[in-house]
């Protein structure tokens, strides 16, 4: 029966090409705009480390003084050197890494490349295994190299191509800020998006090019960039960053067993109490342990522009759908005579209803197809934009399916009212006027 309805729908749609085209165009425009923005939103609010993100947590403690204290406010977004080091050395989690960002002057050995600044990450060694960073060559540095302030560096594949022509550069020397570093590893293409571990940086930017041990970076006075938040008499100058009352580091932990998360949170509270007893902390213990995805939510990493555009597009889709409801109503009521004959010949209301819904479904499919084409054009346009997330805007197979479901679902929904209205036709009246 469905096949017959399908055939009927095609015939009916062919009969009035103009009206059909109008409906398909309306649906296609609405779907195209919504799917473009939804895809961008989906990509941007995605999980940066699928499979691992649920084991990653971002501990927060509140080391500030009582100035400006308000109950219930979240602790600072970063940790101070003292707290970071204490938590790092305590090793209460399965893995932990303390890190911050910066920019270092790279002085290539080749005379044909001018010195340039590279974004850098200064971190303790667990960064690499904890975030499952893929290595093209070599390996990360070890914990003992962390302690020894070793002059070692891990570089990105991009930098490796720029400086070493893409060859295995492990063991080579890289000069940065007049200090020689030994390359120990090259990171393969890796782009967690958002770049969750340090939200002070461009959240959707590319990976840093240079990774050095945090202790080494402090030792050779690499400049730190990102946010530094001080209280009390804190001045925030680079030289005394270890002792000044400022937060400027990110601390991440990996807790594999979900049962131990509560224990770690308790540990943070104990730590805060202990520090308060020592006189370092003044506020009542305020320890938080958001998971990775929760942390991204709290910080609203998805750009406001993107959300706004999504809402606009959905509003647009709504207008297009109302438009389609009107056109379908016109179309179905115009066929009152035909429907009256079918009803008189024995078709039940339900059957007529099903027939008309199949017709709207066909329109939805066609609209979905053209909408998909428009969405591809839209995403292509998005990728032309200069923003850092632009390059990420690609259609996935999941979104492809969603596009068709949305198109057909929305059109069926739009068809409900006109179809119901058309079913109310009294067959006798229609037959009489013929």
């Amino acid at each position, binding site marked *: 029966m469905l096949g017959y309805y399908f055939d009927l729908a095609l015939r009916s749609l062919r009969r009035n090409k103009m009206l059909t085209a109008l409906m398909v165009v*309306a649906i296609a425009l609405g779907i195209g705009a919504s799917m473009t923005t939804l895809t961008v939103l989906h990509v941007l609010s995605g999980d940066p480390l699928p499979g691992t993100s649920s084991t990653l947590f971002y501990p927060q403690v509140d080391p500030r003084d009582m100035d400006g204290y308000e109950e219930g406010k979240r602790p600072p977004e970063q940790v101070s050197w003292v707290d970071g080091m204490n938590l790092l050395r305590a090793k209460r989690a399965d893995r932990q890494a303390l890190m911050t960002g910066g*920019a270092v*002057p790279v002085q290539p050995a080749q005379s044909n490349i001018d010195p340039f600044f590279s974004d850098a990450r200064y971190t303790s060694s667990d960064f690499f295994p904890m975030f499952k960073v893929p290595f093209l060559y070599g390996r990360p540095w070890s914990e003992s190299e962390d302690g020894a302030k070793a002059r070692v560096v891990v570089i990105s594949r991009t930098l490796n191509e720029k400086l070493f022509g893409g060859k295995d550069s492990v063991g080579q020397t890289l000069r940065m800020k007049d200090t020689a570093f030994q390359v120990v590893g090259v990171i393969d293409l890796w782009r967690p998006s958002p770049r969750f571990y340090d939200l002070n940086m461009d959240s959707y930017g590319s990976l840093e090019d240079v990774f050095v041990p945090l202790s080494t970076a402090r030792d050779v006075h690499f400049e730190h960039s990102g946010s530094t938040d001080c209280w009390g008499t804190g001045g925030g100058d680079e030289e005394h960053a270890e002792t000044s009352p400022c937060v400027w580091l990110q601390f991440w932990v990996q807790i594999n067993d979900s049962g131990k998360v509560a224990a770690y949170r308790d540990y943070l509270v104990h730590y805060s109490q202990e520090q308060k007893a020592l006189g370092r902390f003044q506020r009542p213990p305020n320890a938080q342990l958001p998971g990775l995805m929760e942390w991204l939510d709290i910080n609203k990493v998805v750009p*406001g522009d993107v959300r706004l555009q999504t809402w*606009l597009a959905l509003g*647009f889709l709504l207008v297009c759908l109302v*438009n389609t409801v*009107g056109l379908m109503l016109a179309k179905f009521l115009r066929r009152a005579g035909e429907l009256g004959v079918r009803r008189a010949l024995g078709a039940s209301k339900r059957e007529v209803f099903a027939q008309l819904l199949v017709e709207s479904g066909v329109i939805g499919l066609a609209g979905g197809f053209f909408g998909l084409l428009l969405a591809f054009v839209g995403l292509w346009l998005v990728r032309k934009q200069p923003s850092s997330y632009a390059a990420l805007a690609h259609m996935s197979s999941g979104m492809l399916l969603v596009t068709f479901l949305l198109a057909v679902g929305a059109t069926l929904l739009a068809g409900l009212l006109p179809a119901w209205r058309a079913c109310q036709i009294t067959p006798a009246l229609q037959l009489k006027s013929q």
Partner: protein
Amino acid sequence: MTQFAPIFSALRRHRLATALIALEIALACAVLCNACFLIVEQLRALHIDSGVAESSLAVINLGCDGCKGADLNARVTTALRAVPGVQSVAVVNAVPFAQPTGYAGINLDHEHFIAVPHFYAGGPGAVETLGLQLVAGRAFQPEDFQTAELWLPQNPSVWITRAFAERLWPGQDPLGKEFFSDQHHFRVIGVMAHLTPPDPGGGHGDSAGEWSVFVPVNPGASLNGVYALRANPGDLPRVLREARDAAQKAAPEAVLDLQQSRTVPELRSDFFRQTRIMVGTLAGVIVALLLVTALGIVGLASFWVQQRRKQIGIRRAIGATRGDILHYFQAENFLIVTVGIAIGMVLTFALNLVLMKFYEVPRLPVYYLPVGALVLWGLGQLAVLAPALRASQVPPMVATRSV
């Protein structure tokens, strides 16, 4: 008015279709007004007056943390001045649309933070090079340029923008007033017409974003590496190219930051690129929306005309002119659109409230509504014209046929 009576009774028989068109107009009205408003807001941001002589400014940014400040400044400024076409050179810490470097919270009583302005620091000649406009107070004297031990001097005399003065001391004369930040103590000796922070609207000030302070500082250990150059606008790209080479040659130990060593017009264009895209997107949505709405009206009106061919024929047969038929459909459209606009106004304000809550959008000015209404009335009339003309062409003969 007598004309409207038959329209009403006809519309009562097509309640559903009428309601749909009205609803579509209402939604279009809400999205249209708000999208237009967002565009205007973005355009206002795009045309912000930075307060500096943008078209003749370029900036050279050197990264060099081991360098001796005074020595570096002397070498680089000498080299830059030697570039043909350079009118003046000054050491600064930032320029509008470059990287912000000097945000700091300030207070008036050593206790309560009130605002986070951007502090511009500049050496001798910086005011002239940047082209800052003083509207009240006095110019800087040589003794105003102090040496900074931290990033700014301890007790400098400063200029602030009019917008910032209004924020700190509403309605009062700001000259001679004082404010504090950390160990610094600032005395206001001048008021500038405009000077935006490097990232206007970047979240530290209000949306106008003109909270800036200009501090005279002796170039040295705390102020080095960033140089503002002034040249003829036409000459600027060449001057910048040569200045980049000259700076690199004069300070081989420093690293030239290519991203930040640009002309100010380039920096501005980069800074607002995202905003321009947003404006384009919004304009696209508006056009598509109007198109879809118009097509919807065309579709439904055509259907009605077709459905009422017989009635139209009868009306023609008993004396209605073509103009009467045309006007009938136009008046009908006008009525429906009016109802749609009425609902749409409520929706517009509801949407604006939602946007205000989540996106820090200001309140929609009331005059958007009549303008939006005019546009939609016009659109409705335009869309209904073709079907209405077709209706007026229906010959009276139709009345005599039985379908």
